[in-house]
């Protein structure tokens, strides 16, 4: 099954800088998600995206975060002003549907290190 491609694989940034993480899912998939995993902790839901708009977001997903799918292909997560605690692995996921036997397929992740 085709995979989800994420770029960059690793990004190091200074606190306060903007970061954009990219995800290239399969075009016929409608449901997209961002999750993150802080080192040693569980995988946490950030946001879900359907039909070019946010369908649900968690408490973590505050005003510093935004998502978009500008060209109908790439799905991006932007962090406007990074904080030290944003350091984590960020995973993009996609699904054909959100019910029945549809499952989320995850990308390999983008490691963000904020200094």
């Amino acid at each position: 099954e085709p995979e989800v491609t994420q770029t960059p694989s690793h990004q190091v940034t200074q606190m306060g800088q903007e970061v954009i993480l990219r995800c290239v899912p399969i075009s016929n998939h409608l449901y997209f998600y961002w999750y993150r995993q802080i080192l040693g902790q569980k995988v946490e839901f950030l946001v879900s995206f359907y039909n070019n708009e946010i369908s649900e977001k968690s408490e973590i997903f505050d005003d510093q975060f935004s998502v978009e799918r500008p060209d109908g292909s790439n799905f991006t997560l932007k962090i406007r002003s990074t904080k030290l605690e944003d350091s984590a692995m960020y995973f993009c996921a996609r699904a054909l549907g959100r019910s029945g036997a549809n499952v989320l397929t995850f990308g390999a992740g983008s490691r963000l290190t904020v200094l």
Partner: protein
Amino acid sequence: DQQVKQNSPSLSVQEGRISILNCDYTNSMFDYFLWYKKYPAEGPTFLISISSIKDKNEDGRFTVFLNKSAKHLSLHIVPSQPGDSAVYFCASRDGNTGKLIFGQGTTLQVKP
């Protein structure tokens, strides 16, 4: 708000024996339960799932059992192989949004 709990952070078994990973949940509205396997520096990989209307699903060496009255599910791997060594995450799916809620993970080590 721990809706999905994996109380065992680690498990070590001998190759060829059975591995049993456990998971508890609190929300009765989850419609599907899934197990994902994760290696370091990789994303979670789907392993097996079970619908909330079933009590067992089997796929090769992997079987997931669901006890709805106890709000408990388990993953059985038999026979265990060294290549099964990874972190296993239990996840419950919100039937309305498709969102997955993960447990903390259990690190499985299968010794040769």
